[in-house]
């Protein structure tokens, strides 16, 4: 295996491959950072360009975009309160708060280091124990997915900011809109009012862009002639120190493992991993009460978690031939179009490609760290730009992003509608993140609950007879309890 990896490294640094990795990672960071353009979109849009390429550079380019974009989403989350991708929605909570204190450079450097750690740990896990992870992931049936979704929903309590009731209301609203579309069991249209575009429900991307990017742009528009974003007043240029990095290591490694694990479960991706990581870091931290006010751990946890998914999501792709998340679903298509057989046969028939991919994940993560840290100063300049330039750009990108996910004008209207909803919520001091969490997890909870009931022929005994499910339900109870205690002690 070591010699295969060394061969892979040699391939990665060859002149026919390395430039594609650099382009992929850099392009991915830019795509991720631009509000409205996501990792999934970046990979989907560039997929056709790879058809004429050799297999290895094509995969390296797409994998580079994937890891770059998952990290890049945090840049706009921190600086503009606008997550560039759904995976960075949890990073807003502490990242933006820290930036507002003038410590944007510290926030950005934590994010780069945590993303790097997440990516490296998950790549190591991918190379060493992917068969074990894959076998464990296969044990996830409908009851386990349902329990995982319930656990995820319990996190609403810990991301609701000052008022749990408002967070709960937002979460309920999110669950309500997640019921729009064809019924997952009978295919009967619900709340669609005959609108065909709603048959698949509200697409998550336009909802996210509306609630965060557009709503924030609307709020900032009120103060458009003030000099610039609120951040710059006492701007500090320093990044985090080595000592702080070492102190954050345990959190980052733990969250990287959470991300790898969630990534390896088909159907659960970086967005869920980021929230679960944030929640776990907060629960186990000594300074849990500082979360949400701009603490380093609150940035490190979701960023290590979401980049942990990048390696994890490759596990089912490479061992089972099924995608681990939305991005690897497109990578699967790329493999097929390249004439490769995803799944275990890839290791025996095309080991050079697999190990080339592994090596390029390592190198890609290192490139991401270097670009991320070198770019901190440059990124910070964004907030020094006058608002009257930034806001039109954000609105334009938002509309492009809402449209381009599915080439849909309808989605642009969805985005505008949620922009208005998000604006009203900000005015009412209601948190938006619970809506996103509910829109991601609501369909997962519903369809898996109903699947599980069908499997058990009408019985609900799966709630207490499936060990993995019981663990997640217990974690959900624990998560609610610790949020309750925190609310009462403060």
């Amino acid at each position: 295996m070591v010699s295969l990896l060394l061969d892979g490294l040699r391939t990665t640094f060859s002149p026919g491959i390395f430039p594609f990795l650099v382009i992929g990672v850099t392009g991915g960071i830019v795509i991720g950072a631009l509000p409205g353009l996501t990792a999934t979109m970046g990979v989907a849009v560039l997929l056709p360009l790879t058809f004429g390429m050799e297999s290895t550079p094509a995969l390296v380019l797409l994998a580079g975009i994937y890891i770059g974009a998952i990290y890049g989403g945090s840049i706009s989350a921190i600086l503009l309160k606008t997550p560039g991708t759904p995976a960075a929605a949890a990073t807003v909570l502490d990242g933006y708060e820290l930036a507002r204190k003038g410590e944007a450079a510290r926030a950005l450097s934590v994010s780069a280091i945590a993303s790097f750690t997440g990516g490296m740990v998950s790549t190591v896990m991918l190379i060493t124990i992917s068969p074990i992870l894959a076998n464990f992931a296969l044990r996830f049936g409908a009851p386990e997915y349902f329990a995982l979704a319930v656990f995820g929903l319990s996190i609403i309590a810990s991301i609701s900011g000052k008022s749990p009731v408002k967070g709960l209301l937002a979460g309920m609203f999110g669950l309500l809109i997640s019921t729009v579309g064809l019924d997952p069991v009978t295919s009967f249209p619900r709340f669609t009012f005959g609108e065909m575009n709603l048959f698949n429900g509200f697409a998550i991307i336009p909802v996210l862009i509306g609630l965060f990017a557009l709503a924030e742009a609307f709020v900032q528009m009120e103060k458009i002639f003030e000099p610039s974003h609120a951040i710059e007043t006492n701007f500090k240029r320093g990044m985090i120190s080595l000592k702080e990095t070492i102190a954050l290591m345990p959190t980052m490694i733990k969250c990287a493992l959470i991300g790898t694990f969630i990534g390896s479960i088909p159907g659960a991706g970086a967005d869920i991993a980021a929230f679960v990581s944030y929640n776990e870091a907060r629960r186990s931290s000594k300074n849990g009460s500082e979360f949400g006010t701009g603490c380093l751990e609150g940035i490190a946890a979701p960023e290590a978690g979401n980049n942990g998914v990048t390696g994890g999501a490759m596990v089912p792709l490479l061992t089972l031939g099924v995608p681990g998340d939305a991005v690897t679903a497109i990578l699967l298509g790329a493999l097929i179009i390249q004439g490769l057989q995803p799944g275990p046969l890839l290791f025996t028939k095309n080991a050079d490609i697999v190990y080339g991919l592994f090596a390029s994940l390592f190198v890609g993560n290192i490139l991401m760290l270097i670009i991320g840290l070198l770019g901190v100063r440059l990124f910070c300049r964004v907030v020094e730009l006058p608002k009257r330039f930034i806001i039109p750009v954000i609105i334009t990108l938002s509309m492009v992003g809402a449209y381009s996910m599915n080439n849909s004008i309808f989605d642009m209207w969805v985005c505008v509608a949620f922009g208005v909803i998000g604006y009203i919520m900000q005015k009412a001091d209601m948190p938006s993140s619970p809506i996103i969490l509910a829109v991601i997890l609501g369909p997962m909870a519903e369809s898996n609950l109903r699947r599980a009931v069908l499997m058990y022929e009408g019985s609900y005994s799966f709630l207490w007879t499936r060990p993995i499910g019981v663990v997640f339900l217990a974690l959900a109870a624990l998560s609610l309890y610790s949020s309750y205690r925190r609310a009462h002690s403060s």
Partner: protein
Amino acid sequence: MKKAALVLALASLIFGNAAFAADFPAKNIRLLVPFAAGGGTDAVARALAASAEKHLGQPVVVMNKAGGSGAVGMTEGAMAKADGYTVTMVTREIAWLPQMGLAQITPDNFDLLALINEDPAIMLVRPDSKFASVKDVLEAAKAAPGSVKFGSTAKPNFYLLALELNQKVKFNQIPYNGAAEAIPALMGGHVDFTMVNPGEAISQIKAGQLKPLGVASDVRMAGLPEVPTMTEQGYPIVTGTWRGLALPKGTPADVKAVLADAFQKAASEKEFTGFMNGRTLGIRFMKSEEFKTFVDNDVKALTDIVEEVKKQQ
């Protein structure tokens, strides 16, 4: 009077186009795919587009427009300007979505251009399953109706309904979102069997992670010659899916002829056939008229099944 004016306007439009047909195509041709990038329909479309460019002398740009089991993209394709610059990849969904009330368009809203691909359904179990043949699966379901769990890639599932109505059996259908979810559910032992298109599970079949029990076709598949048909095993069940090309209704005949010719050549191009064979995707080409009869027959064949689905809703 108004009607006459409209006819006149339409006629001038059509003949106006005809005057330009000699230069057709003068710009990019858009191939609308009603499913997301990276899926099976997308793969077929992209491979075909690449081969068709040579014969059309213009780029063929694939545009994905997913949603509503294909209804969103196919509706847009039917409503597009009938100038030949928008070609839609239609799938078997067009035969049943309208009957289910899930799409406002029907095959009659299209000028059907050509059938490209047809795939049978294949029955799969885990290698350690207690079921070793199609017979075992059906016997178990007959002995205890509703006890055998079927991992369904979509609801309604016409493969399962074909099996159930033909054999008068009842399975416990567990609905998933596509093969990407149903296949891991089967591998993990959460359901007892599934039926998908061979191309969707070929990786797992070749790796020995899933075992094929029978093909729902009259003849064995070239890519999996060792797998017997269901008919051979005494169960005459023939079902599957198909994909073809269609134009908006009213596309000028000469434009249609140019496209038909180019796509027919593309479908027999070595690159395309090599790609399809490599992915165990079946090639079945039919010209416009034949394809129309084929679709009409499929719509009729699905009518009873759709009635059954509506009863279950």
